[in-house]
């Protein structure tokens, strides 16, 4: 039974002259305690997906159709009041910039106590004790002193740890982390990733990690979804995707990494750029950049097919599989579930 399941989600930005579609028919699910990564470049719609899961889409963006079910409960139709029970308490969010969440004029401790007391009846001293405990839990040195400090007195890595501590206070069932380590240095990033992985394992919390960095994904996620231009193009176990990418975009992305070429050699670049929202190509969105593109790709949108343990949306793979098995072994277009 999946904890969070997203079905045929379409997100549209309503403009005066035209509607710009940001997400196309996105479907996936996360089970309890699972760590899922959503990978894509800027403009792939991965952050929009994250925001639409917690109903934080900014103004012109709306969920056009599709459903988001959390623990069997439909989220897209909730009122603002009902969201307050869910957001933070059941589904927590960690942003790239910790200062989005932290209030600069309140001390770290006050914010933590406030967070606890807004959801449970508990007196100040007990809440403080709990907060300091959590600060120690995320391996912040001298938590009692940090409790009194203000966010600007902490470094970036420390702030992100505080955020994780605050998030854990409310015992969420799922954490959505949007590029949580992008602003941090590599040595700090390693620590935060390990902490995130550990708290998720310890508390049985599911994690959706939104990132552009395959390196980060390989450290933390069990399953990976690759997005391109508002669509999921490939999903499967992380190791499988990194070692044996199926979709031409995933292949290109991984091949473009410097460590995939011999030192001093040219890198295997993907030509061109991610299409803009108002300039979405017909058919498979990747076809202008794809080395295997055919007329079919230009006209039709590929559905998902199973390729090994991954599901891929690509006609080239589909054709290859069909050829491989003369009886048409791929079992039709397979929806995610």
């Amino acid at each position, binding site marked *: 039974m999946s904890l969070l399941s997203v079905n045929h989600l379409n997100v549209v930005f309503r403009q005066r002259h035209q509607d710009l579609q940001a997400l196309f028919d996105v479907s996936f699910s996360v089970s309890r305690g699972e760590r899922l990564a959503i990978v894509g470049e800027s403009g792939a719609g991965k952050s929009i997906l994250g925001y639409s899961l917690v109903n934080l889409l900014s103004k012109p963006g709306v969920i056009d159709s599709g459903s988001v079910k959390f623990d069997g409960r439909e989220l897209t139709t909730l009122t603002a009041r009902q969201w307050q029970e869910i957001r933070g308490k059941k589904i927590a969010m960690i942003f790239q910039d910790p200062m989005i969440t932290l209030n600069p004029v309140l001390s770290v401790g006050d914010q933590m106590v406030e967070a606890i007391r807004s959801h449970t009846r508990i007196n100040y001293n007990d809440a403080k004790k709990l907060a300091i405990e959590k600060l120690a839990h995320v391996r912040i040195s001298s938590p009692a002193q940090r409790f009194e400090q203000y966010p600007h007195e902490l470094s970036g890595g*420390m702030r992100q740890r505080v955020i994780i501590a605050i998030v854990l206070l409310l015992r969420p069932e799922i954490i959505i982390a949007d590029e949580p380590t992008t602003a941090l*240095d590599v040595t*700090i990033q390693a620590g935060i990733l390990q902490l995130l992985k550990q708290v998720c394992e310890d508390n049985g919390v599911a994690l959706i990690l939104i990132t552009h960095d395959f390196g980060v994904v390989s450290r933390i996620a069990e399953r990976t979804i690759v997005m391109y231009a508002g669509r999921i193009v490939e999903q499967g176990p992380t190791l499988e995707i990194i070692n044996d990418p199926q979709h031409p975009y995933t292949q*290109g992305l991984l091949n*473009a990494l410097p*460590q995939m070429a011999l030192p001093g050699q040219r890198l295997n670049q993907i030509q061109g750029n991610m299409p803009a929202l108002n300039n979405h190509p017909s058919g498979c969105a990747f076809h202008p950049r794809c080395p295997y593109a055919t007329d079919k790709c230009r006209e039709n949108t590929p559905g998902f097919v199973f390729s090994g343990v991954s599901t891929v949306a690509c006609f080239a793979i589909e054709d290859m599989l069909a050829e491989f098995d003369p009886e048409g072994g791929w079992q039709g277009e397979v929806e995610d579930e």
Partner: protein
Amino acid sequence: MSNPLIDIRGLEKAYRTRSEWRLPSWFRRLLRRKSDTANHDRIYALNGVSLSIEQGETLCVVGETGCGKSTLARVLMGLEKPSSGELYFSGSRIDQLTDQARMPFRKKMQMVFQNPYASLNPRMTIYQILNEAIGLHHPDFSRQQTDDYIEELLVSVGLSVDAEDRYPHEFSGGQRQRISIARALSVEPELIVADEPLSALDVSVQAQVLNLMMDKQQALGLTYIFITHDLAVVEHFATRVAVMYLGRICEVASRESLFSAPKHPYTKALLSSIPRLDDLSVEPIHLTGEVPTPLEKPMGCTFCGRCPLANQRCYEQIPVMQLQQDGSAVACHAVEEGRPWK
């Protein structure tokens, strides 16, 4: 033996931090006659950096936020005056030049910036941006020559000719970085200092820009100083690597020896923390603490607060660069003494 292209000797740079209630400077000087408080309102960005860059090589400067790598680039390009130390370009000293005397060196060294969205003037067309550089350094070009040259430049960095009448905001990040490179190349420099040119770009675009830079190096025999925090790029691109921490260089080595046998504890921790796709088994070495702010001029080794091998000597004595057997240079007491890695 000929001079190295760039020779940096004992470079130091301290910034004055601004206090919120700033008294007029004459008044502060009046107050400061008796007690000199100068040491307390400074940030020490570079504390004695010595480095030399040979013609045709790619030196990558690696380090985390606040280690002074960008300051190094700015001082090198003459955007900041160093507090002390010397800078030589092919044997001639360039750190104390006036704007006028610097002109011939501007033609020889150029810079590519980190943020492609801020490094091009949003109110100038690409033609105007390139024309300004060419007008200053090729004043003898006729209009026709300039036009042809600009077209040639744009094509050589993989842009179409019709780009010249457009404004920077009409281009994507990768294309803007190409324009930046075209601007740097327009004066036919020998050295290009690139300050994190890839960090604002997507992975697939990073590869495009990096390829362009490598092509240009081959074609024009450029020397690069490439400042980055991304070790994967370093491993691919560098011929030599300098690792910086808090205003000092802790290790300089050729790429092969740095990645196969890192010596400085900081380098080791740094290398272990890059997530690698080809080898998922590497466990990162966790450093305790965070990079401190360089408000005080450090007494001993800058890394001692986070170093797992530090002892009393590290807190008291500044380690000096020592040449190792494989040709790399390391500034570390632990390496010198051969302290065992826990």
